[in-house]
C-alpha cells in the first residue's frame, strides 16, 4: 500500500523539488497550501502516514474560516499560524501519525515545547537539500515504526 504524506506548506509549488526523492521512494504527497486547507485535510488524518507542517503559513484566502483556525493567527510570541495548527493536531485532533515541523524557524525552545506536545521532530528548511530531507523523514518514520 502506497504511503501518504500530508504536506501543509504555502511554498509547495516553489519547493516541491525537496520532496522529489521521497516521491521517488514511493510516497504520495498531498498538499495543503493554507492553514484552513490543512485543517480540512487533516480531518482525515488516518489516511496519512506523516503530516508535515510549515510554521509560517497563511490562514486562508477564503472567507468561511472557522474560529478555531482564525485563533491560530493570535499566537503572540511567534506570530506563526503553524504553531497553532500543530498544537491543534496534537492536542485537539489527537492524531497518532507522526507530525513534524519543516520550517525556517529553528528556535530550540519552541522545538522543545512542541516535542513535549508529541511532535515527532523538526527539520530546518534553511539550506535543506532533498536528500537530507528524505534521510531526516525516513529516520523519523523509522523511529515511529512507520
Amino acid at each position, binding site marked *: 500500500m502506497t504511503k501518504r504524506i500530508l504536506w501543509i506548506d*504555502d*511554498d509547495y509549488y*516553489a*519547493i*516541491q*523539488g*525537496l520532496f522529489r526523492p521521497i516521491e521517488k521512494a514511493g510516497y504520495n504527497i498531498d498538499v495543503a497550501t493554507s492553514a484552513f486547507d490543512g485543517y480540512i485535510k487533516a480531518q482525515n488524518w488516518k489516511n496519512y502516514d506523516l503530516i508535515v507542517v510549515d510554521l*509560517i*503559513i*497563511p490562514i486562508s484566502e477564503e472567507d468561511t474560516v472557522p474560529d478555531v483556525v482564525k485563533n491560530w493567527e493570535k499566537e503572540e510570541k511567534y*506570530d*506563526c499560524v503553524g504553531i497553532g495548527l500543530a498544537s491543534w493536531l496534537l492536542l485537539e485532533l489527537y492524531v497518532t501519525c507522526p507530525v513534524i515541523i519543516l*520550517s*525556517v*524557524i*529553528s*528556535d*530550540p*525552545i519552541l522545538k522543545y515545547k512542541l516535542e513535549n506536545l508529541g511532535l515527532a521532530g523538526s527539520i530546518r*528548511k*534553511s*539550506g535543506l*537539500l*532533498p*536528500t537530507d530531507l528524505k534521510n531526516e523523514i525516513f529516520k523519523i518514520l523509522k523511529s515511529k515504526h512507520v
Partner: protein
Amino acid sequence: MKNKILGFLKYFSSTLLNAILISLLVIFILWMLQGVPLFSRGQVSLVQTPVVAPSTTSVTPVPLNYNDALHTYELVATTAIQSSERTLNLMVAMFTAIIGLAALAAGAASFLYKTAREADERAKSAEISAQAAKNAAENANQQLTTLSKNYIELNNRYTDTLQNYIEIRNKTLSLDAAIQAREKGEISQDRYIEAQQWNSWHKWVDLSQETGWHELKAHQSQEIGLLPAIRVAIEMELARVFRGKSDADLSQQDKDYKQRLVSLLEIKFNKNI
C-alpha cells in the same frame, strides 16, 4: 575722462567761490580797521579848495604863491602816491590771498575730488566685488542644483538598474531550480539559501503575502542572517519608496512597511541556535 574733468571743476569752482567770499570778508575787515582807501571816507582829499571867508559885501581872492602851489602839489602827489601804494599793497595782498586761497581751494578740491574719486572707486570696486560674489554664489548654487539633480537622476537610474538586476536574478534562479542545482553541487550553499530568501522576499514585496515577511525575519535570526543581495534589495526598496518623503508625509501603512524594512537591516543572531 570727461566725467573726471567735470567732477574736478565742480569741486574747484565750489572751493574757489568760498575762497573769494572769505577774501572779501577779510578785505572788509581790513577796511574797517585800517581805512583802506578803496571806498573813501573823506579823510584824504586830492584837491585842496582854498578857504574863502563868507562875505556879504565883497569877495577878495587870495592869490597862491609859488611855494604854496608847490606845497599843494607835493601834498597832492604824496597823498596820491601813498594812496596808490596802499591800494597796490592791498591789491597784492588781496591777489596773494586769492591766489593762496585758490591754490588751497585747488588743493582741497583736488584732495576732495581724489578722496571722492577713491571712495567712488572703492564703492564701485566693492559693488563689482559684491556683484562678482553674488554671481559666484548664484553660479555655485546653480552648479549645486545641477549636481543634486544629476545625483538624484543617477541614483534613480542606479536603483532602477539594481532593481532590475535583482528581479532578473530572482527570476533566473527559481527556488525549485536552486534546490536541484544545489543537489547537483552546481551552486554553493549560500547561493541556495539566498534563493530561499529571494522566494520569501518575492512573497512579501511582490505578492504582499505576510508569510514572506515572517520568513525573512526567521532567516534574519539564522547564523547566516540575510545575505548581502537581500540586504541590498531592502535598501533599494527603502530608497525607491521613501526617498524624499518625511515620516510626517507617510500613511500608517507606509510607516509600518518602512519600519519592517528597516528592522530587516538590523543584524540579529539567535543565540539559542
